[in-house]
């Protein structure tokens, strides 16, 4: 699944590069016509991530000066909190709702209705409309599970959403890093996660980056315990913000994978915002992880067509550039100097970012297909071999560590 987070992402949502579009609800409110156009023309199923978490803390939907991050948050809040007496929660959502369980039930029903009807509500404008505009899955709204209170609310939201949808739902399980460090907390989270009315779980571990997991064995072990326990319930487990490591966890139980188009792994904190610089500053997607421009140049610029395809990348984009007589990295590593405060800074050009995005999307697709067709250990062993043969790559050690942890 490709998660679309900003307007330009829709242009990359093309058939053959993804199986499903996952639209962030805040983007859907910001660019409703674009969302309908993308879903109608991509010919792939879609679903909406309701992102109730965006309203969990006021700082996640408002700017530091108290203004809205955009009117689309207001529209989204009105849809989610209709008939609850809440407008925009200017206090943490949990305290805005108070102890009124019926309010959470209402919110769950509103969020389900939003996902089911939002695209259908958008007025058809031109004759490219007409595709199936029903989402392929319905997500339960969920909060970041900071503690037992959120566990209880999430359980309530899950069962209310399932009842409102009239069918099994996709249930996000959102566990922050602090709770993942403690096995007792992980057990408590698991105890609160329902099985009734659930079609699949979607895990999200905000603030937990791939680097953090590889550096903290206990943390990694607890995450594996969580996945294993969920998978053993005979309910599919997906990941809402997947990385290479997430794909490698396929053998442990991750079967569905959503990723977005930013190739720097930030663990996707809940307060992720739109706009601003894309998270590719001076990075290029390399061997299964982003590499700084300088390192990527050292690794791949000297490679000819055959070696580049063998060791670095053989996606349609890179192959096409070679066929057109260009080295792919000449375009993908193009940078410029821009004024920055009193000085200046280096930044990728706009077209380098677009080029990297195609490359990243296709390379990630290849990863998904590789892990679908072979065991994780085989895929990782192949990547270790590639990394070892690439001068300047530091990926070998990291990949070896992943392999040994999973073994």
């Amino acid at each position, binding site marked *: 699944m490709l998660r679309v987070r900003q307007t330009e992402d829709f242009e990359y*949502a093309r058939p053959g590069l993804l199986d499903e579009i996952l639209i962030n609800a805040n983007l859907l409110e910001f660019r409703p016509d674009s969302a309908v156009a993308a879903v109608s*023309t991509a010919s792939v199923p879609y679903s909406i991530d309701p992102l109730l978490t965006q309203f969990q803390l006021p700082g996640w939907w408002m700017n530091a000066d108290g203004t809205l991050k955009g009117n689309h948050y207001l529209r989204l809040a009105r849809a989610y909190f209709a008939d609850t007496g809440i407008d925009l929660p200017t206090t943490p959502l949990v305290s805005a709702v108070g102890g009124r369980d019926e309010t959470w039930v209402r919110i769950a029903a509103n969020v389900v209705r939003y996902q089911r009807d939002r695209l259908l509500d958008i007025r058809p404008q031109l004759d490219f409309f007409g595709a199936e505009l029903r989402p392929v899955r319905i997500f339960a709204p969920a909060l970041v599970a900071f503690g037992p209170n959120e566990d209880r609310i999430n359980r309530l939201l899950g069962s209310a959403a399932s009842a409102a949808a009239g069918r099994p739902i996709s249930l996000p399980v959102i566990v922050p890093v602090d709770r993942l460090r403690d096995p007792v907390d992980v057990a408590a989270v698991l105890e609160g996660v329902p099985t009734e009315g659930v079609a699949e779980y979607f895990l999200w571990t905000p603030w937990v980056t791939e680097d953090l997991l590889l550096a903290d064995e206990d943390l990694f072990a607890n995450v594996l315990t969580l996945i294993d326990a969920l998978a053993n319930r005979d309910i599919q487990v997906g990941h809402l913000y997947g990385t290479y490591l997430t794909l490698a966890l396929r053998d442990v139980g991750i079967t569905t994978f959503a990723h977005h188009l930013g190739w720097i792994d930030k663990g996707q904190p809940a307060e992720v915002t739109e706009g601003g610089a894309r998270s590719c500053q001076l990075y290029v997607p390399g061997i299964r992880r982003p590499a700084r421009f300088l390192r990527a140049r050292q690794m791949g610029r000297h490679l000819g067509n055959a070696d580049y395809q063998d060791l670095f990348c053989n996606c349609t984009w890179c192959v096409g550039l070679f066929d057109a007589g260009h080295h792919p990295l000449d375009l993908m590593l193009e940078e410029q100097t821009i004024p920055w405060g009193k000085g200046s800074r280096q930044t990728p050009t706009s077209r380098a970012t677009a080029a990297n995005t*195609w490359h990243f999307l296709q390379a990630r697709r290849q990863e998904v297909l590789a892990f679908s067709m072979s065991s994780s250990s085989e895929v990782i062993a192949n990547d270790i071999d590639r990394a070892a043969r690439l001068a300047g790559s530091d990926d070998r050690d990291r990949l070896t560590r992943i392999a040994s942890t999973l073994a």
Partner: protein
Amino acid sequence: MTESDDVKKLMDVDWSTAWESLPEAPDLVPRGRTAQVTLRLPASLVDRVRRIGQVRDIPYHALVRSWLLDEDLLPMSSTGRDERQDAQVNVKLAQERLDDLKRQAAARREPYHRLARERIESGVAREESAYGIASKAQPTPTLQQLMVLLLHARGPSGSDAIRGMTRLQKLLFVIDQHLDSRSGFHAHNYGPFNESVNDAASALRIAGLIGDERSAGPPSFDEMIAHVERHSGPAERAPELFALTSAGHAAAERLRRSNRQFEQLFRQVSELRRDWDASDLNDLVVRVYEEYPEFAENSLIREDVAKWSKKPKP
């Protein structure tokens, strides 16, 4: 007598009848010969006015103007009283005619906007009856429809492409004002602006109707490279180009031929584009600011635009 005594004396006077005898204040600035009246009306009423305009082949602004000046029309307050007045019609009147309307409204002890609205309702009812028109509302064209028609029409230079989001915004704004499409333009930092224009342009691009030609299947290398080249390199960023693809022109043609309303709409859009799409973007902006000053109220560049307007043309 102290100052407070003076004040007390003034406060004790009954001023309620004094306004009648006060002389008219002189204009602080010379008044223009024409004035623009902005009327808020129910959307359904505007749709009915448009329909009559189509049937009689008369611009609906002209119809509204004629009704406003028709003292024989008995003002009528119709069913729309509780309806939201979420549509806007701008009518230009000779200043003295507007003064007449205001005097007539004052005599009826009601705001002149209300008198204007009631005359329009009355005019609509009379014409619908005379021409046997059922009062079924016509759909208002959407931004995407207006955009494809605009990009299908040729500009004064002979090209149908439009360079830059500013030009696209301003031209759609002008069309919106002439058609009263009510598509959500408001006074913003750089004059009239509508966020939905950006969304509509993005939607048309995603659908392959503007920008690069798109295949239905996975993107080919040529499509990807065309997409990448639309973005800027290290050189200064060029304004974005909005041009219909062959699929976009086909969609515009289908729309134009779909019914008489769109056929006429396309003619109007083409005329407006020929009239407004100046080769120099500054000229377009200046004209928009001058003709729609209420949409320039929040502009951060008003002073700059004023300078552009005074600049002698070579």
